[in-house]
């Protein structure tokens, strides 16, 4: 299975990605995740800039998808990540997984997001009315990714 990987400045259409994923008579389940630019709790976000490491980004995402395809029986995978300038409520990232069964589709989509958050070379800079700040990595994301190492050891 060849994952569809896109790193782009332009927006994407969920409906087009979904049509591509559901076009497989053996798949009974499609799970999609979309990440959006959300308001900060303080409410003073004006937008963000996403930097990445061209070349490494694509290979890191491909590697993550291949790991997912080894762990679960999947029909197809799509990962789209935007870079450059984004505004409030803009789409940042899309992960879509089609599979015969829903458990595999859910698990794979979560796994891809957890690994993407900790292993794919993207960096967010938030622009607020008080200045621009690089976003700090979250311990929560490290812990989310670490769950999958444990089940690897157990499996």
């Amino acid at each position: 299975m060849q994952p569809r990987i896109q790193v782009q400045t332009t927006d994407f259409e969920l409906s087009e990605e979904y049509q591509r994923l559901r076009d497989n008579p053996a798949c009974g389940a499609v799970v999609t995740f979309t990440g959006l630019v959300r308001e900060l709790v303080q409410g003073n976000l004006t937008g963000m800039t996403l930097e990445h490491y061209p070349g490494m980004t694509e290979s890191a995402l491909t590697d993550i998808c291949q790991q997912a395809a080894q762990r679960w029986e999947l029909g197809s995978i799509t990962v789209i990540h935007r870079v450059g300038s984004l505004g409030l409520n803009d789409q940042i990232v899309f992960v879509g997984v089609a599979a015969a069964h829903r458990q595999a589709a859910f698990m794979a989509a979560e796994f891809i997001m957890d690994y993407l958050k900790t292993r794919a070379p993207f960096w967010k800079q938030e622009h607020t009315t008080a200045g621009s700040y690089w976003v700090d990595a979250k311990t929560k994301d490290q812990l989310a990714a670490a769950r999958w190492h444990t089940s690897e050891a157990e499996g």
Partner: protein
Amino acid sequence: MLTVKLFAALRERLECASLTVDATGISRVSELKQVLAARSPKWQRELSHNDVLCAVNQQLAASDMPLQAGDEVAFFPPVTGG
């Protein structure tokens, strides 16, 4: 030569996105870090952070990763995409 790339906050604070370093005498990532740290106290400080990540030829790599002339080595802060 080794190509060194820096990203995000590290690129901004060191005011440098990319540079080349003579590969002579550098056999591992840890040795490249020492050579870069010798450039200035700022480089020393920025590269000594525990959370600085490294990639060799676009794959995440540890400090003991062997290097050879022609390699592309990147240093960057923890990733925050998604």
